[in-house]
């Protein structure tokens, strides 16, 4: 083990100089992160332009929207002057941007509350609900996916696949009602109503009430991501590096856990990031069903009562969540896979 054999040509570096492009690690992870965050900010800026445009596309403009149908032209003119709506559009946008950045998203028509307050009160609770659903779902889906891939085409794989497809194709509201019927009405295990209260702590103080909403939110994610994980793991089990690992005497179990798992996670994590806005959509149904006081319920009631400022505020929040989701996915991906750090793929 001590004698070094010099590369035979006498020039050990000859291959390094070979024209195969060895990717330069320029700047590494820090630089990747900075670039990616700047990209995300650019997207958020574009989103703000769209939301601003939507605000101005309200029937009769924002003034009519705030003052109502009975407002006189004089009142509207006064309102527009007071709120700078007679200014050039670019200036209006800049001031909208400034207000949005300081958290001022306007007033709700109905709630007698600022949009920021309305959202600020409910967003954490929705984050709690979707966060819990996500964590539970991932903890179940990933092991199930890996297990199915290892046991591919056996009876247990077929059964789990069937279950996943049934769960995936069941509408969330129906699933929720089914769970209420089975676990609450019949078995009496958990309450059918979600915990009420103003803060996250209030909600957390009634964990039993959280079970059914979290479960209802988690089941579709489990169904989706166990499928992703299964196919990703299967792809990786067929890779050459798996054979190399086995050839050096690594036990199959260790091959799966040490080599395959990390490589299989990369595409799944990307999907999880893009799934974040979908989960907000799911929250809409779950919160409605269980009367859970979160963003979904807020969005739902605002949509029913044409409370445009609240609706747009929600749109802005969900858009930002989408951008943050894909940013997080990219960061985790870069941590998992060194090849993506150069921003090459």
């Amino acid at each position, binding site marked *: *083990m*001590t*004698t*070094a*054999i*010099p*590369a*035979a*040509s*006498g*020039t*050990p*570096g*000859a*291959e*390094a100089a*070979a*024209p*195969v*492009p*060895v*990717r*330069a*690690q*320029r700047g590494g992870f820090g630089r990747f992160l900075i670039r990616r965050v700047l990209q995300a900010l650019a997207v958020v800026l574009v989103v703000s332009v769209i939301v601003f445009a939507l605000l101005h596309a309200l029937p009769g403009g924002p003034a009519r929207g705030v003052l109502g149908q009975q407002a006189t032209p004089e009142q509207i003119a006064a309102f527009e002057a007071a709120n700078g709506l007679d200014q050039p559009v670019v200036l209006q946008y800049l001031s909208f941007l400034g207000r949005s950045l300081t958290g001022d998203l306007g007033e709700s028509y109905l709630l007698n509350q600022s949009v920021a307050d309305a959202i600020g009160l409910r967003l954490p609770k929705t984050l709690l609900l979707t966060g819990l659903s996500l964590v539970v779902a991932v903890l179940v889906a990933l092991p199930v996916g890996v297990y199915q891939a290892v046991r591919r085409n056996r009876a247990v794989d077929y059964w789990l696949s069937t279950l996943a497809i049934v769960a995936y194709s069941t509408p969330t509201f129906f699933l929720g009602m089914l769970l209420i019927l089975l676990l609450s009405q019949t078995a009496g295990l958990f309450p059918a109503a979600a915990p009420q209260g103003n803060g996250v702590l209030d909600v957390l103080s009634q964990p039993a009430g959280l079970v059914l909403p979290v479960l209802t939110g988690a089941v579709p994610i489990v169904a989706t991501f166990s499928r992703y994980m299964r196919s990703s793991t299967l792809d990786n089990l067929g*890779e*050459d*590096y798996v*054979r*190399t*690992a*086995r*050839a*050096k*005497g*690594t*036990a*199959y179990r260790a091959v799966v856990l*040490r*080599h395959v798992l*990390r*490589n299989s996670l*990369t595409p799944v994590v990307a999907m999880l990031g893009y799934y974040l806005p979908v989960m907000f959509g799911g929250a809409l149904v779950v919160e409605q069903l269980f009367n859970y006081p979160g963003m979904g319920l807020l969005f739902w009631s605002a949509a029913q009562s044409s409370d445009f400022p609240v609706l747009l505020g929600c749109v802005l929040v969900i858009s930002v969540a989408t951008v943050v989701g894909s940013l997080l996915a990219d960061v985790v991906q870069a941590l*998992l*896979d*060194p*090849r993506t750090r*150069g*921003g*090459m793929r």
Partner: protein
Amino acid sequence: MSAPTSGTGGETPADDVVLRIRDLNVTFTTGSGDVPALRGIDLEVRRGRVVALVGESGSGKSVTSLSVLGLLPSTARITGSVELADGGRLRDVAAAAEDELVDLRGRVVSMVFQEPMTALNPTMTLGDQIAEAVLNHERVPRAAARERAVELLRSVGIPEPERRARQYPHELSGGQRQRVVIAIALACEPRLIVADEPTTALDVTVQAEILDLLRELVAQRDTALLLVTHNMGVVADIASDVAVMKGGRIVEHGPVEQVLLAPEHEYTRTLLDAVPAVPPASREARVREVERVSSEVVLDLRGVSLDYRVQGRHVRAVDALDLTVRAGEMLGLVGESGSGKSTAGRACLGLLAPSEGEVLLLGTSVAKARGRARRRLLADVGVVFQDPGASLDPRKLVGESVAEPLAIHGRDGRRLSAAERHARVRELLDAVRLPAGAERRYPHEFSGGQRQRIGLARALALRPRLLVADEPTSALDVSVQAEVLQVLRDLHDELGFGCLFISHDLGVVHELTDRVAVLRAGRLVESGPTADVFGAPRELYTAELLASVPTPDPAAQRERRAARHRLASGVVVGVGPDTAPGSSAAPGSGAA
């Protein structure tokens, strides 16, 4: 079928036997019945010997190598025995349970694979991947295993091993990755290393270095090597014994000089005859054709430079390249991977626009032609790609694929009727010697060589004045390659198009082309008549390239290797005909 065992040294048997395969039969269970892969293999590998297993795709050589490590898929049914010497006793891999195999793999026997680009885990550092092999079999602290990994990297000739150990596979070139795979195989000092086509995916110069490394490691550590390869030159370079496989059987087996220089079995002779060598026995056949080269220039590259953008930086792939191809001529464009030869080929097809210089097709600049004129110009260029499987639409009938250029371009400015197209397709498929009815079948029903001939038929559908062939036979077995090249040569003689033949295989280029251009890192190193350039290279790089091509004659290969080492150490003597001794595989040229 009892093949003679390889003992030439006269040691007592069993003592130094590290692998003994007896009457090994492997059958794969598939949806459409059982497919036998191995039928009664007998093979012995002794300490310090290099046994080469040669044969074409489907001959069962890879199945044999995988069975030695018990790595066959679960659809394989195995009878017979595969015994490995472990300490004083023989352990039968064919009958071993999985945990027993886990104990044997890496410690007693290890493996080097064909594809260094995918054989390593992309998300684990090189050091950890080597250390894992150590930790699998030895109770040592992790830090000690890491140190061993660095030591192993050093021993396989990787510069800066400490830094490399912390890097990931994508940061290394293919040749270096193969060195890492070898380091993993060496980690626990196994008695036997199985290497399955370890140099097939590498450039010739890198291949020569890897073979040198394997030869020295085997000699130094007294390890045995079971080498699976289709390349007779590689066999001549490194093997002490050869087993020739065909259809799951060993058809000939013996010491390397005997098998390569005085083959007994018909199939071995066929294999050896199909190997294109540098230089071939005679040049007369080609000289006749050189006279048929007209003075009309079909392709003219003038100072062409091509750039790629990589991470926002411009990387020059081709630098101020001048080339001409005349009608009726074949120009070989050779170079290692990354030399820019394929990029240059794409520019000739109008697929890439040069950043400097111009590409003239039949005297017209490709870049300046627009619209209909451009389409008509490009109709005069045919192309054949490397991968015959991927370059045909799997959902189109062969006839449709071949007819497609006719449907797009018509002929002489007019559309062809369905009947005319059909007649032309039949004519083309006849020309590439495909059976009647081939046009009504799908690509997957054909073998690789047949598919490449379909590609050739499609390329010639419009009677192009120029054919660009980018590594057309690199994915094929030698005997199939010989067949495809013969078709290409005949059609070239008959139709008189100019041909740009891009290849890394100097033997093929030498047999086929009239003139050759050598590329290195995007620059033209040397060009001229093929016989002159290969016979007496003016540039050191060309000489090194030529000396790196192994020849299937053990004695000649030893000389060639020595010449290469002289070249590499800077002693520029004997660059010329004497570094490339002729007569490949000529019986009687000395059983050294």
